[in-house]
């Protein structure tokens, strides 16, 4: 019980850290990094909890989910980076504009 | 049997289809548009005449389509709805002829006539609605369709008038919606039945019923221009004359009054409403509106605004007649629905003629116009005297029945209100007649549009004379079988005595 708890703890920690970073930092790259950290946090939680079987083997479905999650995270991050570059290219700075022009 | 059920729908389509086609017509195709308009109006009148004859024999027309699981879209041709449909069909024909003449050469006529026919469809729908939901449906459609007519001119004032109009009517519609829903939840049905269907509701619900009554009356009061909610009507005078003629004499204002009639007779039932004690405040409110409307009309120099305020006070006669629960007062109220329509539309036609031919808008500019436009002014005089309640013209009949009804029920204060309002009517109509007939014009007339021999375009003159003639006929020959009075007696007969 204790080992899975530590992994889950680490996962939640990462998730929460990513969340904090996402909110606090203004620069888009930092936000994308934060999202990746949150993603890996979630996968860590999944992996950690997968090992609670009595016979020590891991639960394959969790692993499959992790793989799918990772692939999706990659795709999302790639798109985010390209979008960030495009934003930086058009607006000159890679930050979400604060002054809403309503 | 299908003929029985499809006739109301046919009446609706007879004005809906031409309207939609006219929308698609390009601006230049005047001939097609006029023929379509007139064709629609004539067919509608023919259908309605057929139905009047049938309903008089006692047939029942009903179209029922499923709308919500246990609420359906019903069009019913009872005697009460026939009254209002005939009025709107008749006056639509007259106003179309008038509008064709009035809007000669002005822009956006396809759009105007399209919305014009939709407006009449909505009025016919309001008249024929078989339950409160269908009534609400057409009532709101009426608001939507009349907005473009009010804003037709496209000037800033028109837009402001349109906005005020919406600022009053939409919240009114909302009040109506809440009232209808609440009624539906309390009683489970919204079907109009001739003696009202609320008698069976148990005692505990009565405060709810009273609240519902006032919600519905306020909802209808906006269109019936009851006192606190009348602000939009004088401002809507900025619309072209046929619009203010049809809308403020027949369609919009009457829809509100008709709504009040429907609630008091077909939802609550007259006796039950008086037991609840809701009719007394309504009568007082109507009386205040009558006096207020006339008082305000006294100080208006603009002719159409004066007529607007007079409409506000006149429509409240109907509400007053309905609120005094009694067979004779009902006759008075209902027959005034028709008579006021005839007289008021004549006045608006004449006002339109003046504005169109001589460019007169103010009463002070009307000095001695009787010589220049004798026929129009004769029609105006008939309408004005009718409004005051001078015997041969229809207005007197309804005032007579209102007075009789009030005394019969012992509400003698109503007679005082009638007297005061007659005096006030005289106070603001007779000076106009005096200026028109017995004064000399102080400046030559600026000929806005010149016509060869007659005083103005025949399409503008004939409708006014026709409606004036109808007003006198409705008054003088009131007891003929198919006159409004006879028909209203037929309605009240099965309303009170069956």
């Amino acid at each position, binding site marked *: 019980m204790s080992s899975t708890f530590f992994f889950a703890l680490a996962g939640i920690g990462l998730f929460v850290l990513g969340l904090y970073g*996402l909110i606090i930092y203004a620069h888009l790259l930092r936000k994308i990094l934060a999202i990746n950290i949150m993603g890996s946090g979630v996968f860590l939680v999944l992996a950690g909890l997968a090992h609670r079987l009595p016979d020590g083997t891991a639960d394959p479905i969790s692993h499959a989910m992790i793989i799918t999650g990772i692939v999706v995270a990659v795709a999302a991050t790639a*798109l985010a980076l390209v979008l960030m570059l495009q934003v930086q290219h058009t607006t000159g700075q890679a930050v979400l504009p604060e002054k809403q022009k309503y | 049997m299908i003929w029985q059920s499809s006739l109301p729908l046919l009446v609706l389509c007879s004005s809906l289809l031409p309207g939609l086609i006219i929308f698609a017509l390009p601006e230049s195709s005047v001939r097609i548009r006029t023929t379509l308009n007139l064709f629609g109006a004539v067919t509608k009148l023919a259908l309605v005449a057929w139905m009047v004859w049938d309903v008089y024999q006692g047939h029942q027309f009903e179209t029922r389509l499923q709308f919500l699981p246990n609420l359906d879209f019903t069009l019913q041709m009872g005697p009460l709805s026939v009254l209002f449909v005939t009025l709107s069909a008749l006056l639509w024909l007259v106003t179309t002829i008038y509008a064709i003449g009035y809007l000669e050469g002005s822009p956006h006529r396809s759009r105007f006539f399209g919305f014009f026919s939709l407006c009449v469809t909505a009025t016919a729908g309001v008249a024929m609605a078989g339950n409160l939901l269908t009534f609400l449906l057409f009532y*709101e459609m009426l608001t939507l369709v009349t907005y473009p007519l009010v804003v037709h001119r496209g000037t800033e004032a028109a837009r402001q008038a349109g906005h005020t109009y919406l600022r009053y009517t939409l919240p009114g519609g909302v009040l109506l*919606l809440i009232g209808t829903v609440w009624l539906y939840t309390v009683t489970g049905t919204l079907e109009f039945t001739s003696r009202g269907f609320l008698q069976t509701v148990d005692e505990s619900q009565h405060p709810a019923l009273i609240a519902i009554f006032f919600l519905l009356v306020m909802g209808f009061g906006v269109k019936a221009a009851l006192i606190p909610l009348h602000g939009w009507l004088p401002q809507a005078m900025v619309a072209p004359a046929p619009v203010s003629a049809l809308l403020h004499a027949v369609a919009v204002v009457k829809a509100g009054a008709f709504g009040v009639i429907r609630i008091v007779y077909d939802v609550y039932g007259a006796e039950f409403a008086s037991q609840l004690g809701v009719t007394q405040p309504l009568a007082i409110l109507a009386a205040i509106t009558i006096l207020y409307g006339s008082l305000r009309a006294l100080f208006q120099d603009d002719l159409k605004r004066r007529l607007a305020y007079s409409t506000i006070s006149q429509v409240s006669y109907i509400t007053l007649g309905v609120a005094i629960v009694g067979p004779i007062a009902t006759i008075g109220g209902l027959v005034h629905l028709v008579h006021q329509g005839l007289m008021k539309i004549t006045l608006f036609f004449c006002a339109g003629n003046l504005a169109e031919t001589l460019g007169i808008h103010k009463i002070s500019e009307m000095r001695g116009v009787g010589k220049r436009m004798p026929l129009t002014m004769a029609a105006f005089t008939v309408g004005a005297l009718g409004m005051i309640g001078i015997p041969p013209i229809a207005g007197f009949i309804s005032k007579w029945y209102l007075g009789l009804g009030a005394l019969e029920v012992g509400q003698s204060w109503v007679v005082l209100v009638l007297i005061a309002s007659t005096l006030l009517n005289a106070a603001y109509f007779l000076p106009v007649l005096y200026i028109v007939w017995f004064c000399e014009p102080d400046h030559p007339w600026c000929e806005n549009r010149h016509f060869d021999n007659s005083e103005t375009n025949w399409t503008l003159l004939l409708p006014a004379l026709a409606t004036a003639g109808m007003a006198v006929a409705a008054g003088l020959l009131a007891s003929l079988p198919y006159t409004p009075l006879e028909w209203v007696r037929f309605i009240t007969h099965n309303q009170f005595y069956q």
Partner: protein
Amino acid sequence: MLSSTALIWGVALILLPLSGALLTFLFRAVATPIGICVALAINLCTVRLAWLISTQEVPRYPLGGWGAPLGIDLYVDGLSMTLLIMSAVVGLAISCYAPSYFRSARHKLIYFWPLWLFLWTALNALFLSADIFNLYVTLELLSLAAVALAALAGSADALTGAMRYLLVSLLGSLCYLLGVALLYHAYATVDIALLAERVVASPITSAAFGLMMAGLLLKTALFPLHFWLPPAHASAAAPVSALLSALVVKASYYLLLRLWLEVFGNVNVGIDVILGVFGAAAVLWGSLQALRQSRLKLLIAYSTVAQLGYLFVVFPLAAVNANAWQGALYLALSHAFAKAAMFLAAGNMLLFCGHDRIIDLDRVVQRLPLSLSAFALAGVSIIGLPPSGGFIGKWLLLEVAVAHALWGWAVVIVVGGILAAAYVFRVVGHAFTPAKNTHEVHAVPAVMEWVALVLATSSILLGLSAAQTLMLFEVGDPFRILSGEAPS
């Protein structure tokens, strides 16, 4: 023996747009014809599926042949079928509208088709899937496609809007994924039906509930979290903002509704009141903001925020009487049609006048009669005036609110209607008056105007065909009305 099951049409609904996307990505020259054929095919399949489920009992469709706990099931009931129809109709309209909208920007059209068809695949997959992890993947697919489409417009606003939208949706998805992980590890299954049986009130359930709901609320842009919607929807291209407002937002709402009804069935009273309060705030704040906007598309975007508020006001009402859900679903359906029509009409006006400042809508009613009447009819449905679908939705909600004397919600629903009337007629009013400055004018192709008008009239006709639509809602009893579990 198996292919005869009805849901084969559901599978077709997923594969058709997916293969369409691939084909349009490959063969660029013929992208538009392929796209429109695929759209028509999807509509046919939807109609066939709707016919099947309303006439016979449709079993679940195990993808890959494996049962529920192991494999993924496709399941369709009244709720998802309605939303499938919604996306089919709006999708068809947008597919017809887009080619002529991008007439001048061919390169954008080339990329519009694959992205749009991918989005359509995601929508259909989402509405059909009955597995929460699969829903995460479809949600992700949906978000990325939506972001890519939003960024298609290429302007600075569009890009920043798309970026903010991407970050927000990724955050939402990750929270949702964490929720799924917790649920999976608590109840050893990711299938909604099985979860519905196994979920019990426990700390892990409430944690998962909190995470998933928060994630989905963020993606559905409920009031405090609406900040990303207006810039993203307003600055995107007209067809894109139409599908964003009408379809994408509804998908996450559907997911939220599905979880609320099935997985977290025994929700407590407190939560739905909180959602109701936020919904009411959204209605009022959204309408107020819409009134203040000077640009037409921003006005419509804020109107979306307001109308979404309605979908959340239904939660406290449904706690009292389950019929309220039908009202909400009706509102969602008619809002989709009306909002799509509004955005398309706004697109026409933008294309025509070159700008969308409301005050300078120079006599649009004469020059673009069809677009303005489409806008007006859609407005009627948004306001909820009688002949329209919106009215039926409001009627059903009011019926419940008034029957149980919940006057607060009734007032909110009604005041929302009036405020909606205010901003719709503000625009319509301006269209009548001649604007001060005149500017050169581009002709608008007839197809674009007619598509907007057809969508708007369909939202009105929805109001007239209420009885049949409500029958469709009851298929499969998504809201537990017939089975009597939910209080009614």
